[in-house]
């Protein structure tokens, strides 16, 4: 789960990483009050879960409260790469002596944590990494023991961060790493981490992605969602425990397992159709889950036909069939459903569908056949 900047900064403060003082504002008037409370020069920053807001005009410096109000008026409501800005973060301006880049993430290629540090922080770090790879120091960290003090120190000196600030910089790296691990983050990225004119190390930005699998350890993290401008369909799917992503086509896709659903998307595309969504019911889905998945698709007016592609393993095809029959019985589904069942209890599942004998349900023997039927029924592309 990607956090907004100000939420990431709240987490940094928990582990002792200094961040500039600030306030959240939803309106220009609130931004003005925030600037008045903070006093002096402030920065007004769009809170969106996407990069590039600086170039898009989503960050403005304001010398006094009136300017902050005007900046917020310009930013709130902006569209940044499809993300609407609902909130701004107003924070005290920082006098910058140096800008660094720091991130902690998992390197899936080796199965270890990866620290990346650069003395050339700022907006264009990807360009720096591409043009001068040595400018971004990369070091793997053994997750068994974590980031040792020597390793934080080594990162600081090797990246060529300002020598006079080596101790606070290394200490900040260790705190950010602690946030990464103890708060179960998939990513902690600070760009820039700055050295202030006063010699302090401060996180000026915060890009934090939380591992939602670990929310059982952090029940308070659910509350972060309240500030998001979440798509209502995606919110409904999440609440039902379904993996859902909205797409542009007309064939609604329901499948079990991300790989099979991705493959179904590919096959629908290859036979000339386009998927309306990605919807993974996960492993071990029962009748209610399938029924819920169909309900989610009813909310999307772009859907013309639905393809249910299930290969049972831990999921039982009889329960899937029962869920389809239940959904048809309780709701007036506006489209035909092409169903392909194989694997655990597939014969029982096919029998349940045959017995229900609904004309809305079209059985298919193979994945390819199912995709072709669904695309035909949706009227092609």
């Amino acid at each position: 789960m990607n956090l907004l900047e100000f939420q990431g900064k709240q987490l940094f403060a928990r582990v002792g990483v200094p961040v500039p003082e600030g306030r959240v504002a939803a309106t220009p008037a609130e931004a003005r009050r925030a600037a008045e409370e903070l006093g002096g020069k402030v920065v007004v920053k769009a809170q969106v879960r996407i990069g590039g807001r600086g170039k898009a005009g989503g960050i403005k410096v304001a010398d006094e409260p009136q300017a902050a109000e005007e900046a917020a008026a310009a930013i709130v409501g902006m569209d940044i790469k499809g993300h609407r800005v609902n909130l701004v973060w107003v924070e005290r301006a920082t006098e910058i002596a140096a800008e660094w880049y720091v991130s902690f993430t998992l390197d899936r290629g080796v199965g270890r944590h990866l620290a990346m540090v650069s003395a050339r922080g700022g907006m264009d770090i990807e360009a720096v990494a591409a043009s001068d790879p040595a400018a971004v120091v990369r070091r793997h960290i053994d997750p068994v023991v974590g980031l040792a003090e020597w390793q934080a120190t080594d990162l600081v000196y090797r990246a060529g961060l300002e020598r006079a600030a080596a101790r606070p910089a290394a200490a900040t790296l260790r705190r950010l790493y602690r946030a990464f691990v103890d708060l179960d983050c998939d990513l902690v990225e600070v760009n820039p981490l700055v050295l202030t004119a006063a010699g302090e190390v401060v996180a000026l930005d915060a890009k934090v992605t939380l591992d939602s699998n670990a929310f059982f350890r952090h029940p308070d993290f659910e509350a972060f969602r309240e500030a998001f401008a979440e798509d209502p369909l995606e919110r409904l799917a999440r609440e039902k425990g379904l993996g859902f992503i909205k797409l542009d086509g007309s064939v609604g896709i329901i499948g079990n397992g991300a790989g099979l659903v991705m493959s179904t998307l590919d096959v629908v595309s290859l036979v000339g159709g386009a998927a309306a969504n990605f919807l993974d019911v996960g492993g071990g889905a029962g009748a209610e889950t399938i029924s819920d998945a169909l309900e989610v698709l009813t909310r999307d007016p772009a859907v013309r036909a639905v393809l249910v592609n299930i290969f049972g393993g831990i999921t039982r095809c009889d329960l899937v069939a029962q869920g389809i029959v239940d959904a048809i019985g309780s709701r007036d589904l506006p489209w035909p459903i092409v169903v392909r069942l194989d694997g655990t209890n597939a014969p029982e599942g096919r029998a349940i569908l045959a017995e229900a004998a609904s004309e809305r349900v079209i059985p298919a023997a193979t994945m390819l056949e199912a995709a072709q039927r669904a695309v035909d029924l949706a009227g092609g592309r």
Partner: protein
Amino acid sequence: MAVYVDGTTRLLVQNLTGREGSFHAMRNRAYGTNVVAGVSPGRGGQEVQGVPVFDTVSAAVEATGANTTLCFVPAPFASDAILEAAASPGMRLIVCITEGIPAHDEARVVNYLRQTTGVPLIGPNCPGVISPGKANVGIMPHEICLPGRVGVVSRSGTLTYQAVHELTTRGIGQSTCVGIGGDPVPGTSFVDVLSRFEADPETEAVVLIGEIGGEAEEQAAAFIKAHMTKPVVAYIAGFTAPPGKKMGHAGAIISGSSGTAAAKKEALEAAGAVVVTYPTEIGEAVAAL
């Protein structure tokens, strides 16, 4: 002897008393797998359809000589259960079905196992491993399998079934099918399984099922090029997939251009693998080898 599991497998099921644990343990037993024990702390002394339950892995292993474990322990406790199994003398394989284990727990456990016991872990978040006609350790629907000489390895659960199904419906049997799972830090990689298939006299060809993200397919391609003499048929899912989780600039810096379905297909083809476009072509491609 087959890869990973066979007639010598003595299976322990962790959380045998759970709904999924008991369901799949009994399916595995019905297939011929020698299910010798279950573990559920606090339930020692009970039985599940004749299989004795113990409080701890060490007690179960001592009493039954279990040498393989199948873990259905819920995600918050699963990494601890894997460590428990790995610490048990004589344990030669851990298969973990559990999905949703926090990434940091998984990274710690996988690295710790590599550094210490070296007991192979398949999964987490995987369908397990089956050697058709010999043993099934996991949740794969064994009805779709057929004994034979093609090894199957996959990151995706249900796509594994799809691949096996395509083989079986064309009369092509499998030596062993391994679902390594799609989690960020899998205990077993494509390369681990490919090297076992290459060494396995009962395997003559390999089917590899990959998907977008990570570098596992690229690493597999490098291994195939350098070490495989047996032919490989591959399928990659996700050509039209929406972009996944954004990992900030860090993700872009790490992965560069790798990780896309097209890049993976290209790498595998350059390594000499036959890469098919539809899952339905898997069987045809293997038949044509």
